[in-house]
């Protein structure tokens, strides 16, 4: 059927191209030492996708180990409180390890096993990806080293201890801004040094091709489930789907299955102390295209192309770049990206705790904050789907400090 409505949207889910590009974004900008490895990973991933046994093992673990499907919850008290559009929460925080990160880690460790790799490395910001990686490494009996910025180690102490309990070595990174980007630099340095035995489990939809594609593929279970669950509950699709964006894995996971549908998609960047200040992590709003960590995307950078430091109250959003598929979706206008400040996220964190009895991760609180702002102005039959990507236990020290409470 020559239907423009189906031909154009079909292209939206088709990327990246054979060289890993989403429009002008993405690609494989890595040192030559790593090139053969990522080409190898690409081949192995293609083979795994075509292998029913791989899919079966992934599905089994997602169901019995992670606890999928995660519930879709109608947030009735919050909806009543806001007195506007209906708010549904996709409860990724109920996954094993407390965030969406594990969806991707299960997939990647199965790839590592397939490729005969015997050592796992990962970078982490908030520690959620580090915990999820340490978890699957423990489950599959592989030694694991997690790189984490020294500043993040300080503000995410509970997750550091969890990783150690899980048997991982946590290596403190004191170069640069001592946050997520520096942890990623250090993980890449480790990988280039240990090419023969090491598998790098990247936690977000960034890095060289095929990472943005495969992480997205492992995360889109979020949107697929939410779509089916909402169709069952309401008999229709949401009007808006919203998720927080750092690198952007929970957001792309939620959005991708809706790209072809008439659903408004909103990605929330961390506006930190305000988009009009230097202290934010909104690379789409405040950055421009460049190359970092193996891909071309929007980056916070100065006029000379040096990467500038990001800021967010949420360690998981504290990254000066964004996944290349988001950069592309932004450039074609399919997804709208907006900013939520530290203060707004902090309010939403407390709001959800008090009204729903759910303590969200500070990352997810950015998406909640947007919904709380938007819902009152929307008709009551409208539906907002929010990705509650992680739980907030890890953030209680940060939040207490912000609220002036001594723990």
């Amino acid at each position, binding site marked *: 059927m020559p239907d423009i409505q189906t031909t154009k949207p079909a292209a939206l889910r088709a990327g990246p191209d054979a060289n890993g590009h989403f429009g002008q974004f993405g*690609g494989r900008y890595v040192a030559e*030492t790593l090139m*053969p490895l990522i080409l190898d990973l690409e081949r192995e991933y293609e083979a795994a996708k075509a292998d029913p046994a791989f899919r079966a093992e992934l599905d089994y673990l997602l169901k019995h180990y992670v606890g999928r499907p995660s519930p879709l919850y109608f947030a009735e008290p919050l909806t009543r409180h806001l007195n506007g559009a209906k708010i549904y929460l996709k409860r990724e925080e109920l996954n094993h390890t407390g965030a969406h990160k594990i969806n991707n880690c299960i997939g990647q460790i199965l790839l590592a096993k397939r490729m005969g790799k015997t050592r796992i490395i990962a970078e982490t910001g908030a520690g959620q990806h580090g915990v999820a990686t340490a978890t699957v490494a423990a489950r599959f009996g592989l030694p694991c080293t997690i790189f984490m910025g020294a500043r993040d180690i300080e503000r995410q102490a509970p997750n550091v201890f969890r990783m150690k309990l899980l048997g991982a070595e946590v290596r403190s990174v004191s170069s640069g801004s001592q946050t997520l980007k520096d942890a990623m630099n250090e993980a890449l340095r480790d990988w*280039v040094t240990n090419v023969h035995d090491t598998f790098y489990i990247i936690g977000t939809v960034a890095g060289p091709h095929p990472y943005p594609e495969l992480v997205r593929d492992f995360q889109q279970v979020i949107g697929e489930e939410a779509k089916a669950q909402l169709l069952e509950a309401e008999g229709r699709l949401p009007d808006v789907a919203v998720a927080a964006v750092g690198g952007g894995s929970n957001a792309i996971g939620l959005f991708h299955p809706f790209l072809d549908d008439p659903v408004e998609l909103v990605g929330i960047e961390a506006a930190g102390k305000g988009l009009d200040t230097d202290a934010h992590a909104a690379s789409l709003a405040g950055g421009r295209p460049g190359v970092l960590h193996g891909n071309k995307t929007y980056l916070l950078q100065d006029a000379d*192309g040096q990467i500038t430091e990001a800021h967010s109250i949420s360690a998981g959003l504290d990254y000066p770049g964004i996944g290349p598929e988001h950069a592309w979706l932004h450039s074609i206008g399919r997804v709208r990206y907006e900013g939520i400040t530290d203060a707004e996220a902090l309010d939403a964190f407390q709001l959800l705790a008090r009204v729903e009895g759910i303590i969200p991760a500070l990352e997810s609180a950015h998406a909640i904050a947007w919904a709380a702002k938007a819902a009152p102005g929307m008709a009551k039959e409208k539906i907002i789907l929010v990705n509650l990507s992680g739980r907030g236990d890890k953030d209680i020290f940060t939040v207490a400090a912000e609220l002036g409470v001594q723990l």
Partner: protein
Amino acid sequence: MTDRIASRFAAIRGRAGLVTFISGGDPTPDLAVPILHALVRGGADLIEIGMPFTDPMADGPAIQAGNIRALGAGMSVRKLLAIVREFRATDEATPLVMMGYLNPVLAYGPGFAADASAAGLDGVILVDLPPEERQELSLEGLHLIRLATPTTDAARLPTVLDGASGFLYYVAVAGVTGQQSAAAADVAAAVRRLKAATDLPVAVGFGVKTPEQAEAIAAHADAVVVGSAIVERIGAAHDRQSNDIPGEVEAFVSTLSRAVRGARKETAA
């Protein structure tokens, strides 16, 4: 345009060359030109001038520190080209190659190649620009020096060599700059493999820190690259507020060049 790289390799035929690396503008941009001349006086045959970047993912601690010192002192691509221009005013012969990461070059804009070659730069090594992304920018008038590594197998080598010019840089160990060193026998085998596939001179680097290591590599390669060891000395001299950093650089490089020049004496005749 005279091809300084080809002329230099032709001029030193019969012995290995010494390639020295510094972080451009380390510790301060105003010392860059004196340090470049000191490298030449010390016996460097070709110079790689690093363009500092905030996120040097292929570099070890020494060059990371050099980058931080230089950026802290206000280094930029624009300043690097000014340094090249000033060096060229008194040294027309020594090949100068810029080594660094793609983003600062992209940020400079599409005029980079023309401005760089007008300033007297001979080539570039862009660590994070593999052949697959070559279309990203124009490098007209500049040599594009490619890297081959221990992971570059026979199937991949033609891709690396396609479009390579100037010389081929063999990264002797899988890793970051200034860390482990390769065994001379492994290097010899790798260089033989590369030379069977290309007519370009092969320079070998990564982990070459002492005159002894440089001499061992020089027995097999067309040139030896020393970087981190020089950058470390610049850092140490800066830390103790030395008032003659160029002199210290020259003294150290002299020990390297003597070792490299002596490497093939036993086998030459």
